[in-house]
Each structure stands twice: as C-alpha cells, then as structure tokens.
C-alpha cells in the first residue's frame, strides 16, 4: 500500500482522534490555568403570595446586550491546582497530627488518590487469580457444559456497570436479601451503607466480579494454544500437575497475563461507575469522580471547568506512570525490528 492511499484511508480516523482527543487535551491544559465562570449578581426581589409579601435574594447571571450570559475568563496561574491540592491545609494537618493517613484524607483529592490507587492494585491480583482458576476449571469441564458456563460467566462483564453495581447494592440495602441473611446468622443489625469501609469492600467486590470474566476469556483462549506435547514430555519426566502448571503453562501464557494486567490497570484507574451505582459519593471519591463532580452544575448553577481541568491533568500523571513501562517495551521492540 503506497503512502497516499494509506493517508486517505486513515484520514477520517486520524482527524477524529486529533479533533476529539488531542485538541481537548490541549484545551484542558489551558483551561486548568484559567478561571471561567458566569458573572452572577445578587438581586433582591419581592415575592408575593396570598399570605403577604417578602423580599428574597437571588443569584442571577448578568446578561450582555445580546442577551447572552457574560463570562469572566481570567488567567489564574496555579490557583486551580492549589485549590485542589490544598498544600497549606495539608501542612497544618501534618503539623498537628503527624503523617496520619486518615487525617490527610479529609482533603478530597488525597482521599480520591488513595482510593483510586488502592482500588486499582487490590483488585488486580484477585482478578488474575480468579480468572486463571476459572479458566483452568472450565478447560477441564465436559464439552457440553462449556457453552452454558461461558454464557453465565460473560454476563457480569457485559452488563452495564452502573446497573451491575445497583443489582449488588439491592442485595445489601436495608432489607435486601443478603443483609437479611447476615442479620439472621449474626443476630445483630447490619447497615452496609452507613460505613465507608463496608461500601469500599462492596465496590472492590463489584469490580472483581465484573472483570474476572474478561481475564477468564483471555486465559481460556490462551490455554487452548498450550503445546500438548510439552506437557506430555513433562509428565513423562515426572512433573506433577502443579509443576506442569508452574513451569509450562504459566510461562506460555505470560504475555497474556501482562496484557490483562495492563488493560485492568487502565480500566480500574478510571473507576467511576461503581461510585455512581452504589451511591457512594458521600463516603468515597475517585479521581474521575472528582472531575465529574466539578463539571456538574452545582446548586448555584455554575460549573468549575478550571478545577475540573486541573484534576484531569493530575489524573493524567497517573496514566503516564502506568503507561511508561508499556511504551518503553513497545519502543524497544520497534528498534530491534529496525536493526
């Protein structure tokens, strides 16, 4: 394929990614140093109803000649970042309480950071382990049963994340079936959605439940490609089942374990839907949720685009850290190919 046809074929997709991914990234970068808001003025208005009149104060956007809302858009430097990172508050907390993790977490950003990182790294080993176990089990199943089991397994993965977390939430709310069962066994009242740690546990459980099928499908497909002769040879040499797994199967599917790890890190780092589904925003906070929260209309009808951009930029630092090892590997391979 010559260069011209290649360019014509890739142009629409390339344009799409430039205009709607790359340019927004630059915009976010610039916005994070700006403060943008509608100008509001406080108006006193008399409101009358059958019981008499009273004056109330309202915040009303100022309109220009054309009737559009007037906006301010000023350069504020690092102000947005300072507003999120709150170094002064952090300093005083550290001064008063020492390096106490729970005190530091009273600042939203550090709470979100802590949760996002623990969430990403705690779920990972569980997903890999359960996915692997499941793949080994299904691999040894009767052929007739494989289809239905794979069907059931795919469901948690395919289901809308928000709905999936809702369906688990409904099992655990006040008089949900699992809470009733636990109360019956433990003979005491349980309120899962009143404590931060129990919600966090549920959120972790949900993600493991949701992602294990993905790991399973990849590992199961990889198991079909393991060389049977090598396993037989190992068997003849006296390797038991565990040793065959450890020294032949695992090294063979290692690239795929890396692949699943990478995809899981990317996806888990974006954790967001669970917080919506479980209604956990009062207790938990993730980096992407913070951005979303700044972008929503707040009670006074304004959006904090600048702060949302600053959180986005901070979030992306994490993405870069996750991607560095991958990119280094890709570039090394490309170099070897050239030589």
């Amino acid at each position, binding site marked *: 394929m010559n260069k011209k046809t290649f360019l014509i074929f890739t142009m629409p997709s390339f344009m799409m990614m430039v205009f709607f991914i790359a340019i927004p990234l630059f915009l976010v970068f610039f916005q994070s140093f700006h403060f943008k808001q509608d100008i509001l003025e406080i108006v006193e208005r008399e409101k009358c109803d059958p019981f008499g009149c009273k004056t109330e104060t309202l915040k009303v956007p100022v309109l220009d000649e054309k009737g559009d809302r007037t906006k301010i858009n000023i350069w504020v430097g690092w102000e947005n970042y300072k507003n999120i990172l709150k170094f002064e508050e952090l300093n005083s907390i550290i001064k008063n309480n020492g390096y106490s993790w729970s005190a530091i977490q009273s600042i939203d950003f550090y709470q979100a950071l802590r949760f996002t990182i623990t969430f990403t790294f705690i779920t990972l080993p569980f997903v890999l382990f359960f996915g692997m176990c499941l793949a080994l089990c299904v691999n040894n199943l009767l052929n007739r049963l494989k289809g239905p089991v794979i069907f059931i397994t795919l469901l948690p993965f395919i289901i809308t994340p928000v709905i999936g977390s*809702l*369906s688990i939430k409904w099992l655990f709310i006040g008089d949900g079936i699992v809470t009733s069962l636990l109360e019956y066994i433990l003979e005491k009242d349980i309120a899962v959605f009143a404590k931060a740690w129990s919600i966090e546990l549920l959120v972790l459980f949900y993600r493991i439940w949701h992602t294990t099928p993905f790991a399973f499908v990849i590992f199961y497909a990889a198991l079909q*490609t393991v060389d049977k002769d090598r396993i037989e040879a190992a068997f003849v040499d006296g390797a038991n089942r565990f040793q065959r797994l450890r020294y032949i199967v695992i090294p063979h599917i290692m690239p795929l374990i890396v692949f699943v790890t990478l995809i899981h890190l990317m996806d888990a780092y974006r954790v967001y839907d669970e917080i919506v589904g479980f209604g956990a925003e009062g207790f938990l906070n993730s980096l992407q949720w913070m951005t979303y929260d700044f972008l929503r209309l707040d009670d006074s009808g304004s959006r904090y685009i600048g702060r949302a951009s600053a959180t986005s930029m901070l979030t992306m630092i994490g993405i870069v850290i996750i991607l560095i090892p991958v990119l280094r590997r890709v570039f090394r391979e490309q170099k070897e190919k050239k030589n």
Partner: protein
Amino acid sequence: MESKLFNLSLSLKVIVGISIILWSFIALFPLLWVFIMSIKLPIDSFAANPLNVIIGPNTLKQVGGLSFINLIFLCFSIYIYYKFFKSREHYFLKINNLTNNKLISFLLLVVVFIALFLVLFLFFNTHIANFLNNIFKYIPFLKILSKPLIGFTTQHFIAVWSENEFYIQFLNTAMVTLGVVTISLTVGTLAGYALSRSSSVIAFWLLVAALVFRALPHSVLVTGYLELFIDYGLYGKKIAVIILLVAINQPFTIWMLRSFFMNIPQDLDEAAQIDGCNPFQAFWMVIMPLMWPGVITTGLFSFLLAYNDYLVCALLLDGQSQTMVPAIMQYFNMETTMTDLVESIAAAASITLPLFILVMFFQKQIVSGLTQGSVKG
C-alpha cells in the same frame, strides 16, 4: 497415555465442579434477583425470606401469578426462539434465493425475528396460555396445572414504560448507539484496513497514540469540550454525545479491526489490484465481504460502550434527551416509596434484558473479539 494425562483425579473433579457451581451462582445471582424482584409486589420483593421473594405469596393473593402451563409455555417459547436463531444462516440462504439481494434479505430476517418475538411473547404466552388456563380450570384432575404457582405482576414494567415514559429514554439510547456504531465502524474499518497493510513509521506512531488515548479517563475528553458545546448550543443534543463516544471508542476500534484484517492474507488485495481494481475497489469488493464477522464483533463492542455509558451522557444530556442509564439514576435518587424502588428495579431489568439476549446470541463473537485483540496485538 493421553487419557490418563488429561483426566482429573476424583478429588480434583469434585473441586472443579464445586468451583464452577459456586462461580455460576455468584455471577448469575444478583442479575437474576433483579428480574425476580421486578415482577413482585414491593412487599414480596424485599421480604426477608428468599422463598417469599421467589414465590411471592402476597403477589399471588393480590394479583395472581404464573401457572404450570404458563411456565411450560415460557420455556417452550425461549427454546423455539433459540433454535430459530441457531439456524439463522439456513433461513438467510432461503430468503436470499427468493430476493437475490443480501441487504433486503438481512432486513427481512430481522423483521421475521422481531415478529416471532412479538407473537411468542405478546400473544402465545399471554392470550393462548390464559385461554388454556381457563379451560383446564374446569377439568377435575388437570385443574392443578392451571393453579397459579409463582407470583407475577407486570405493573411495575407498565408503570415504568407508559406512565414514566421510559420509551423516550429508550429511543434516545437507540439513536445514540446506532449513531456511535455506524460512525465508528465506517471510520474504523478504513483506518484498520490501512494500518493492517502498512508497516510504515506513521502507522506505528498512530497505533501507539491510539494505545495512549485508550488509557485516558473519559472525563478528560468531556472537560475539554463541555464549555464549547454549551456555548454553541450542542448541550442536550445527541450529536455531541455521539461524536465524543465515537472518539473515545476509536482507539479500541482500530486496534481490534486491524487485528481482524491481519487474518485476511495480503495476497488477496494484490491479486485484486493485478486484476485492475484500484485500492478502494479492492478494499470494498474483495476484502470487506470476508470481514463481516470482524465488523460485527467490533460493532458489538461499540454498541456496548455506547449503551453502557453513564459519564458522557449524564454530563451532556438532560431531561427529555437523556439516555436510559443516567435516567434510571435520577429515578433512583428521587425514590421515596417502596413502589418507586421496585419501579426503578423494573427499569434496571428492562435495561439488562437486551444485554442478556445479546450475550445469548452473540456469545461466540464476543469471545472472539476479546481474544482477538490480545492474541494478535
């Protein structure tokens, strides 16, 4: 030798069996429970005893339920529908012989599927089954067959779909997903094809950039354009959501389609070009007919992304233009009574049902799509 090597010992067999049963239960239970709760009156849906939730004594008493005959009919219809789907290619060929046009016969087949669904579930399962129930009621020994066994009410579904006008949200979701799937496939197949046929430096950089973009949180992309969309009156318009979702989906789409195109030997395009095709003709007339399985699989994943999205829709749409998933959350937040709660459960069940059907029918494609990206890429 072979049999001895790969057969499990009895204890391992037991472990495998128990793990599979346990996992199936954990995987299925929350979803199944949503369906069971949605067809019961609130008092049964949140009963402490699981048996009461499943059988629903209060629902039975107040509304009625499904008899043995109903259950048989239900299983039978699902079986028929599934069988019909399994032999879809056979029927496709038959229709194609009559019409001689692939697109028309495909559309005809889709119409037949929808018609069969309506006949089975809106006529066969309700009117015919109730008719039989009424007859069996008067036959002494067979009376037991028509006695309601499991409490069943559709009132929450009716409330959600007609009173709360959930169909508006359904249509919005349908438009958004349709837009996202068509645009990302059109744009993606062209790029995926070119990338699979080129080993140039530009192709390499494009793929690496796509990989990096794949990792970005979706909120970042919304942050960049939210202000502009609001200023130019695109807020609340579906086109804005469609464009953003296509962009979010693009990196994944081109990676997946590229690996599908890699499976088609390059000799084919060369042969086509020797026969006088230009590159576009070669792509459209020679390669694409072989690519449909890959396109369908990628389309499935685009569909899932658009259908499952919460973040972009919640930020860019509101009120009447909202899609189903964010709408249900608003629903859920204002819930005050138990009936409202069960209604939102019914809404959740309505959102889940299409996905159930999707997995049932496209299991093979989903598995192949998931493994394609990893094994080849």
